[in-house]
């Protein structure tokens, strides 16, 4: 059976459960859903719950204990998803104390729905969820989806909001780390517990950017025994990187005039020197490449460790479209007359309703456009800017100088470890209180701490297309430029 994750915003989960438990604890209830999804070719990759098509009076038969959805409700849902472009789904409850595995009539219901909705929502999945509670009141959830003639089992539900809660569905066992790995985590286990170790070992984290912050983060991921790490970077190691990049040992540094190894290769070697059993997938590529984006959507967490504007937009779009938990870190040093006056690091957690990179005013559209231009266009614009200066005009309309962000290894490592602290909280679920935005200036009095909760702006794409996944393609903010070469898997 194929498996996949379902992600849902915290507020939506609460609303869905309240509705499904309307006649709890002995009688069942239901509501139709609108869902987002991601598919790669004919394979369904991830699901989100976007909204509820709430029942009206008469839409369900109140005379029976189980669920009986009336024709008007089913038809109205079909028309709704046909118009919205989202995927149809249903959620119903099982009585308290009962398992949430589908019953034979649930099987019949889902077979019917998958076939019925196919005409109104062609090429989109159908999603079916079951909610319940144990006798002690512990919430349970299970689910499945139908796509391109295949059924998929939902093996994890991730609730994303002020916290990130990962709920393996009923019956799913987490893979325990091998005994040799568990032995290395003794101190960790005493504070976090065996389940946390299993969660880390069973997690997939993507690190976008393997420079100063990225290499420090992946170093820490390896020591924490995260079982699968995906590395993304287009650059090669240079001598000037040596001060910051973890794993940039002397023997990797290039001779003068020669190209160094890909940064992702340097990173892989570091990870495997720490733990040879960690699965590493490395790409010379960009988060905007479709193949890499699919892997990001399937990951448990994405760490954005690049200083590019398009990288921030890509990372935050992952978070609001697909509800992927994303942490993005930025660092800079402020200098004035040969003195360092500020050492600033920023940690962003992107998620549904938490404001995207645009809501947080973190995107410079001019610099972003320049990042994505062809080399020829960049040269043309630089020349035009030089000519403008010679004419006594400002160069900015033609070309804006791309700042070289000064930084230092201690700062990038510190930023990465701050991000790792949030990472461990998200992956293990052992602590909460994760900041949505945190800025520190290490040279300021009281560290100049700024910690603000952002909210998505009502007219922003991150509100309109929250959870839409592959639906509403016209609303996508960014995609890979056509002149970029295809990513290389190393």
């Amino acid at each position, binding site marked *: 059976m194929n498996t996949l994750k379902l992600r849902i915003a915290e507020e939506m989960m609460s609303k869905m459960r309240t509705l499904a438990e309307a006649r709890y604890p002995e009688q069942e209830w239901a509501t139709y859903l609108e869902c987002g999804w991601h598919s790669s070719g004919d394979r369904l990759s991830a699901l989100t719950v976007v909204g509820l098509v709430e029942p009206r009076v008469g839409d369900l038969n109140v005379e029976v204990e189980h669920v009986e959805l009336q024709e008007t409700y089913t038809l109205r849902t079909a028309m709704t998803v046909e118009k919205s472009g989202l995927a149809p789904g249903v959620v119903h409850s*099982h009585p308290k104390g009962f398992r949430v595995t589908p019953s034979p009539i649930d099987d019949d219901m889902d077979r019917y729905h998958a076939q019925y909705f196919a005409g109104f929502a062609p090429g989109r999945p159908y999603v079916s969820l079951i909610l319940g509670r144990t006798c002690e009141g512990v919430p349970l959830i299970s689910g499945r989806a139908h796509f391109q003639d295949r059924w998929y089992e939902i093996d994890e539900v991730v609730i994303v909001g002020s916290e990130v809660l990962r709920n393996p569905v009923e019956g799913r066992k987490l893979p325990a780390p091998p005994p040799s790995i568990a032995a290395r985590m003794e101190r960790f286990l005493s504070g976090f517990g065996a389940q946390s170790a299993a969660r880390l070992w069973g997690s997939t984290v993507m690190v976008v950017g393997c420079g100063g912050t990225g290499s420090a983060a992946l170093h820490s991921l390896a020591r924490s025994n995260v079982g699968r790490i995906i590395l993304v970077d287009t650059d090669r190691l240079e001598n000037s990187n040596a001060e910051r990049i973890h794993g940039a040992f002397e023997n990797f540094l290039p001779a003068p005039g020669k190209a160094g190894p890909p940064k992702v290769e340097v990173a892989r070697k570091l990870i495997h020197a720490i733990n040879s059993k960690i699965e590493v997938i490395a790409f010379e590529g960009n988060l905007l490449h479709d193949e890499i984006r699919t892997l990001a959507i399937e990951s448990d967490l994405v760490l954005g460790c690049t200083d590019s504007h398009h990288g921030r937009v890509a990372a935050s779009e992952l978070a609001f479209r697909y509800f992927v938990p994303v942490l993005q870190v930025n660092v800079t040093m402020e200098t004035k007359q040969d003195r360092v006056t500020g050492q600033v690091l920023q940690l962003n957690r992107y998620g549904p309703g938490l404001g995207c990179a645009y809501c947080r005013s973190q995107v410079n559209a001019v610099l972003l456009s320049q990042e994505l231009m062809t080399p020829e266009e960049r040269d043309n614009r630089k020349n035009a800017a030089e000519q403008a200066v010679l004419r006594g005009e400002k160069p900015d309309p033609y070309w804006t100088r791309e700042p070289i962000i000064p930084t230092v290894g201690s700062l990038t490592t510190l930023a990465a470890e701050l991000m790792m602290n949030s990472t461990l909280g998200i992956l293990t679920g052992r602590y909460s209180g994760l900041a949505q935005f945190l800025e520190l200036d290490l040279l300021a009095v009281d560290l100049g701490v700024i910690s603000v909760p952002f909210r998505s702006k009502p007219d922003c794409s991150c509100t309109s297309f929250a959870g839409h996944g592959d639906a509403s393609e016209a609303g996508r903010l960014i995609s890979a430029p056509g002149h970029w070469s295809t990513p290389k898997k190393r």
Partner: protein
Amino acid sequence: MENNNTSKGKENGHEHGNEGQHGHGGEHPPKLFIFVNRLKFDESKGVKAIMTPDEIARLVGQTAETAIVREIHGQSDQGTEVTGPIEIKQAAQFTVTRRTVVGGYASSARIEAEIASLREGGQEVEYLPGPPQAVIYRALEVRNQPGLKQTDVLLMIPPGYPAAMLDHAWLPAESVLLGRVKGAVQGEVNMDGRLWRQVSYHPHAGGGNAPWDPNRFGIHTYLGDIISWLEVR
């Protein structure tokens, strides 16, 4: 070899003598097609000039009994119900939606509760969770049948129970009661490692009991119908 130019036989469904009626070059009129649940069906799938709701419903695997058929006139229009034969217009849009879509775990809970009440009353009952779900009433007394004092009776539980009604009864394939108890002997099913024959017994559909009402009847009450049925006359 037969010369088709002089033959009066049909070619492509049209008689040669009728060529002029089809216009220049013998063009064929377009096939009549409709959309049901946004899926296209044409004459090759059974679309015709006049169709009943049942015929429209059967295009998508339903019947007029199980589904409501509507004709719709726009993207958002939920349409008007088709209750009788209708003239089919080219590219007409219909929806065929099940009257009720049933889901949930409660039916299993209810089955188990009914079985529990039977057992409390001393009746031996076995539940087969399936799918398909069924119960076996064990060792039911048989009257007026020499050489046979008791029998097992199988009852298949329909999808959507208890909204869907209990109907029929099944006897062991080798039972001497087949043909002696009320109802024609029909198909067979293999359940619990035994072969059973279906008997056309309908206590709640003209067979003497009140019409099916899930609030009044269930597996526990159906036992009474079965016991009466086994009284061979």
